[in-house]
């Protein structure tokens, strides 16, 4: 199944390399990996989506903890969480279908961020499923190019990655 794993790291040179090296070295498959700054200076947050069973998710967690620069690891998969991807989609459009496309954009609560004579750039935020479905809807019009972020996620409620007991 899809595991969403959050890794909090010290912002040191090479830390992204160390993390991605674990996937290569141990033969795990990354679906997506997103790095971002956090509210704390000097700390970065990796959100990793990985297709795996429970055992491999545990293995990944324990290998991540072996890295000196890793502060916290949290597997959000079985916790209530909010997770979002963002995508920018450049779709072919002309005078006859532009309105129709914009209606689809409306239905998906996406946003048109650029308009040209022959194309629209649409921004959409949501779960991976929602974005995948939106892209399928746009595909018949002709997708010229698209860019998507990986997943970012937070647990629901007041608990945070900082309250993880790493000994568990």
């Amino acid at each position, binding site marked *: 199944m899809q595991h969403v794993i959050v890794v909090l790291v010290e912002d040191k040179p090479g830390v992204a390399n160390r993390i991605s090296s674990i996937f290569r070295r141990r033969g795990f498959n990354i679906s997506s990996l997103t790095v971002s700054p956090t509210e704390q200076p000097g700390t970065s947050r990796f959100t990793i989506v990985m297709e795996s069973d429970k055992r491999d998710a545990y293995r990944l967690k324990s290998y991540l903890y072996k890295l*000196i620069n890793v502060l916290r690891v949290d597997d959000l998969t079985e916790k209530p969480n909010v997770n979002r991807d963002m995508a920018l989609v450049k779709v072919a459009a002309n005078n006859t279908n532009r309105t129709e496309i914009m209606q689809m954009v409306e239905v998906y609560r996406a946003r048109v961020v650029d308009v040209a004579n022959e194309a629209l750039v649409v921004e959409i935020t949501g779960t991976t499923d929602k974005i995948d479905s939106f892209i399928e809807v746009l595909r018949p019009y002709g997708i010229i190019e698209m860019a998507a972020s990986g997943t970012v996620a937070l647990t629901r409620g007041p608990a945070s990655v900082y309250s993880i007991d790493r000994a568990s």
Partner: protein
Amino acid sequence: MKRKLNGSEILWETLQNLGVDVVFGYPGGQNLPIFDAMSKYPAIHQVLVRHEQGAAHAADGYARVSGRVGVALATSGPGATNLVTGIANAMMDSIPTVFITGQVPSHLIGYDAFQESDVTGITLPITKHNYLVTDVNELSEVVREAFYIAATGRPGPVLIDIAKNAQIASIDWEYDDSPIQLPGYRPDMRPVEKDIEHAVELIKHAKRPLILAGHGVLISGAMDELKYFAETTHTPVAMTLLGLGCMPASHPLNLGMMGMHGEAWVNHAIQECDLLLAMGMRFDDRVTGDLKTYAQNAKKIHFEVDPSEINKNVKVDLALIGDLRESLEQLNPHVPSLEHGEWLKFINGIHHESSQRDIQNAPDDGLLRAPHVINDLWRHTNGDAIIVTDVGQHQMWTAQYYKTDHPNSFITSGGLGTMGFGLPAAMGAKFASPDREVWLVVGDGGFQMTSMELQTIFQEGLKINIAIINNGYLGMVRQWQEFFYESRYNNTPITSPDFVKLADAHGLVGQLVTQRKDIESAIEWARQQPGTALLEFRVVGEDAVYPMVPAGASLHQMIRRPVHAGTK
């Protein structure tokens, strides 16, 4: 008080403060400032090796015998890449080591400068951690962190790549010995009380318990705690290759080595037990054989410092994560006195096929056999020497026949199985323990991989005794060819130089031994020599190590020594 020092001086000052007394190294363009500053620090002995791999293995051997951090120093590029095998070896066997490499100046990094290589990139998967230092202000702190990381938790190699500009730049500096701050590093985990209680329950209910003692016993210094536990609960102890010496071989509860070339009754005991207590070992494929049939009826408790080892190869019922000595200190007061008379009787009943009996039954036709040589070496040295081996058949025979009673005295490359490890590791062992007798047992193949270190031994005036087991083959591979490739001995017959002349050419002494009757007198002769003495034992070519669990087979499916194998 602060003094103006350059990076190289700061490095040596820091090493000195950390208690380093010997560094194995090789100079080059990008570590010249470090070597230039060296003479101001005579308390640290600098050994010039003949190849950086030798420096790495020597640091490794030093660490295994002393329990302290071993240090090797090399230049950038080829100097650093030559360390790689030694670093990987230290990683696989969890050896506390620090590798220091010179790097091209910061402004040239990334521009393919002369002798530049991406050393932190290359060594990332084979180090516990590594650093690139480009700013002299960070140097001392990085070195302190490196030693701390190398020696704590599950030990391992840490590499520090120091750009030349950071070696040269001067700052006002004084040694800071405040505690290391590493928020992401937690080497201090301990089992929780309820897990200890769970362990006690499992131990109380077991009828056929067995301890698997590994390298972790030696690393954490849990020899006394292990002995107490085993004696109190009358639990027999099987050892991994790297665990040898963690309990005296002569102890009645010590069964000996398990695994691919372990004693048959030890492997049978593992398959028959109902509780496995794995202490500081990691269920390597060489000790488990086929996982599907491994100790099927046993509950399993894993005492382990590294959480990533839990359920990695063998699924266990209970994990006690933490330093083994501390875990046993926590557990032992709760452990009742137990008797396991029937179980011990059963094990003693399957004892009859020991390897010891094996060689006693071998025909005494005057020809030399490696087990005889090693058995005689064991007898003649009372089993008291530090034994260093290389990798291959002689290594397994040494594990079987040199039954050491002493911890940290059986030095061998386990996880990586590095041929060429022996000679340089023996140098390191001698530096760690100059007053003890050191014997290197090495094959003709592995010896030729790093034999240039004989000259380092000469230059350093070291006294080591070397026993080359020369069978004219890369013996272990030949054995696999015999068993699994219909005896097609492709590229395993190997010629050797005249080893006695080689010793002579290096300013050392040597003797050739071809008759069984001459073994003990040759050993005594070697021990009496003031300098390093080399004995070449010409043994029969096609002997094999028995018993053997073929790779991937079940632990109880062993190939045994044919009854008249010795007559080949």
